[in-house]
């Protein structure tokens, strides 16, 4: 197999692959390592992806070899190599003391060069992993102050806030992502989800605030569907939120969107979800991209609500 086709195989897998996917990818290691090194950008990108896969599956000897080759080529003081080295150290650490050591290393590197963003991200991840959540958040806040145009950092910050149920901060961070990438439809859907969860979290489920949040959630979901045709997650959200809005305990006086429109949106979302579920289950040609777990969830939703 050529380097390009191998790389495409890695690219098509997500950063959070299922265990079986990881295993299949990491088993490619011997064949990739036996290819002659052509010093092309694709090959090094392939090496990087393979390093992560081998670390996931615990193939540390291959990982060591890949890391060695990468650092031979680009030097130990390259920011990205330092981050990869850090990932290797994190993965192979056996106890918490070793992890603390890695964390200290990161701190030292960042003291010398505060602009080393890959290592800064590693440090934040490790802090979060070690359950130092507030430290991770403050470190990430410093990072976005240094570089407020990095969408990945803002998105991660939103995730950390969400885990701590700080919904308005999470929404703020995601809005920053939208300022950088205004077409990121999955971020729109995420905003819909967070608004929905925030509405659920408010105990009194009939108040004005709840309806406002639910309607905001519905609108974000609608926008995600407007940006991306046939977005399963968006339609799932629309159906859930409209069902909630149509519940009898929500008083109509607080609503800004008339009931008939909500009804229409609900039935439209039902039709779309039905199409996607049947298409995906029959294995039709144009439905191969949908995540099977998501389709199963949509099917369950369709079965439980008429």
């Amino acid at each position, binding site marked *: 197999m050529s380097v390009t086709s191998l790389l495409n195989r890695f690219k098509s897998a997500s950063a959070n692959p299922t265990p079986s996917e990881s295993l299949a990818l990491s088993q490619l290691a011997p064949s990739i390592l036996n290819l002659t090194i052509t010093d092309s950008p694709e090959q090094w990108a392939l090496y990087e992806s393979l390093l*992560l896969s081998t670390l996931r599956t615990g193939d540390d000897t291959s990982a060591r070899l890949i890391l060695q080759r990468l650092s031979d080529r680009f030097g130990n003081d390259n920011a990205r190599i330092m981050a990869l080295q850090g*990932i290797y150290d994190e993965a192979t650490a056996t106890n918490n003391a070793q992890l603390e050591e890695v964390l200290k290393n990161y701190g030292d590197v960042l003291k010398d060069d505060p602009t080393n963003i*890959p290592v800064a991200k590693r440090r934040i991840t490790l802090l979060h992993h070690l359950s130092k959540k507030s430290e991770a958040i403050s470190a990430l806040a410093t990072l976005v102050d240094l570089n407020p145009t990095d969408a990945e*950092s803002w998105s991660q910050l939103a995730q950390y806030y969400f885990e701590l149920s700080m919904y308005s901060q999470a929404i703020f961070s995601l809005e920053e992502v939208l300022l950088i990438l205004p077409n990121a439809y999955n971020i729109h859907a995420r905003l819909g989800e967070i608004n929905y969860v925030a509405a659920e979290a408010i105990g009194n489920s009939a108040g004005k605030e709840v309806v406002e949040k639910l309607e905001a959630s519905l609108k974000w979901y609608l926008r995600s569907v407007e940006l991306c*045709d046939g*977005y399963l997650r968006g339609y799932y959200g629309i159906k859930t939120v409209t069902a909630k809005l149509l519940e009898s305990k929500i008083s109509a006086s607080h609503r800004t969107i008339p009931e008939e429109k909500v009804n229409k949106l609900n039935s439209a979302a039902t039709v779309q979800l039905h199409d996607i579920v049947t298409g995906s289950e029959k294995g039709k040609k144009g439905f191969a991209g949908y995540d099977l777990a998501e389709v199963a969830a949509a099917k369950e939703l369709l079965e439980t609500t008429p």
Partner: protein
Amino acid sequence: MARSLPSKLLIAFSSLLLAHACYSAHEHSLLSTTATTPPTTPSSSSSPSTPGTPTTGSSLPLDITLETLISVSLLLVGIISSGWELKPISLRNYAGGVESGRVLVDGQVKRGGLFGGLEERPGFLDVRKQRKEFTEWMKVQG
């Protein structure tokens, strides 16, 4: 690329027509050159009104011009209608295609959609968590 039979035939026919038009034009130009070259008699050099060179700018007959134009336009129609899959140009269609797997990115179905990186965040990869998940999965597999 799959091409339908009618467009294939159209392309073949119009190519033939175009080739014929080119050949006719060539023949015509040859013919007019030999016909209009003045004889090299001494009398021609004495009269200054006779041009010393052949007039190459004689116009092409109308039928050749028409044949060329028609064949080129037919060829265009044939090529355009030959059934390439056109790429979507609006984000809504493209993103939807990537999401549903209709549109391939780098020849593969792209998991996570166009902006998947924003939610996977490779820079913040928690490798220990994934490692743990993997070992647990391996235990279940046996």
